[in-house]
């Protein structure tokens, strides 16, 4: 079912004709919104790198793109005693999620001025999570892949006459990544990204 959704979506993303292109590199600050008992800390250790084309025939109202993201979530847990069948184990520990995402996206630019864009869009793709628990010198964990949907809204501003500009956006990630061992039925997070863009000139 996921493939049925993704294949035409990616075809649309990759085949769109364009007049204007842009690359961007953003600092991404995110906060988990699911299973917050295991991981609740916001993370500033993340980023996004992406590419977009603006569709000429829509007068730049539509754009399509690809986006790669990475984030490291971490949270310290004070010493806790875990009861077992015939005993117990006590330790403090760190929970970690190392996360990577790849999406294809479509945006509608509500404002599509030569140097200023306001957009809303949707990205669809994949999320890869590495869950890790560090305690003393030991580490354990597991990994999961999931289908990712990412609604996003933001602004892009370019310095007039220059190819460089800035970008800021809010996004919400909802993915199907599960981890029974750590209590994840899905993984969701809200994020704010800000960074630089390089755009082709008219």
């Amino acid at each position: 079912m996921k493939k049925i959704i993704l294949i035409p979506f990616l075809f649309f993303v990759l085949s769109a004709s364009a007049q204007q292109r842009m690359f961007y590199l953003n600092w991404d600050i995110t906060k988990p919104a699911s299973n917050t008992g295991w991981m609740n800390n916001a993370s500033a250790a993340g980023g996004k790198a992406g590419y977009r084309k603006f569709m000429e025939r829509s007068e730049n109202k539509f754009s399509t793109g690809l986006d790669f993201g990475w984030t490291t979530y971490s949270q310290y847990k004070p010493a806790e005693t875990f009861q077992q069948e015939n005993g117990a184990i006590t330790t403090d520990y760190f929970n970690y999620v190392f996360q990577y995402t790849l999406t294809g996206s479509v945006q509608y630019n509500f404002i599509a001025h030569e140097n200023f864009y306001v957009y809303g869009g949707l990205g669809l793709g994949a999320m890869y999570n590495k869950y890790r628990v560090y305690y003393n010198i030991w580490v354990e964990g597991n990994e999961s892949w999931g289908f990712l949907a990412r609604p996003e809204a933001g602004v892009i501003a370019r310095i007039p006459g220059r190819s460089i500009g800035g970008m800021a956006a809010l996004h919400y990630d909802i993915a199907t990544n599960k981890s029974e061992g750590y209590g994840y039925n899905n993984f969701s997070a809200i994020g704010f990204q800000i960074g630089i863009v390089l755009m082709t000139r008219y």
Partner: protein
Amino acid sequence: MKYFLFLPVLLLLWSCQREPDDARLVDQLVVSTNFDPVADFSEYSTYAIPTDTIGFLSNTNPNDTLLIAAESSYPRPVLQAVKANMDALGFTRVDRNANPDIGVNVYVVTNIDLYQQVVYPNYYYSNYYGYNSYYYYPYVQTYAYNTGMLVLEIVDIKNKTANNKVKVIWYAYLGDLYSAIELIPQSVEGIDQAFVQSPYLAD
């Protein structure tokens, strides 16, 4: 060409996969305890424990300085902490020749995967410290990491078999010793925790 400016920045950010602060990770020992579910701890009242000697088992360095150095200050506070906890539980310490109900073994194992390779919570073995005046430990295998574990064991002497075999009825593993920032305070704290999470010993 200008797009290549992104490459070094991208690589820099890509390398930002952070890992935990090592100092914070190792400032407390992991304390794991286990007990024999059929043991009745209320039937024991006396115990024996060495005063100033703990065992050392290593498959790597026979000259390890942690414990066997003549000036090592590690064994005595460790044994005192175990003794204090045993006394607080109501057990009475007696000489090992005074027919104690239980014996307490304390030793360090290095470079051995205790969690995966040495599991004998209800296993009978033939000796314990003081009973035949030497140590005997079964089934140890080399582990890839240099780790050190402080092991506490309570063995049931009262119910030893006719051929003098005794049974481990409780044990605690505390580690990693070699990564500890303050070895003795962390070990003493870990020993206290081992008894705190084993309330059934007071039954």
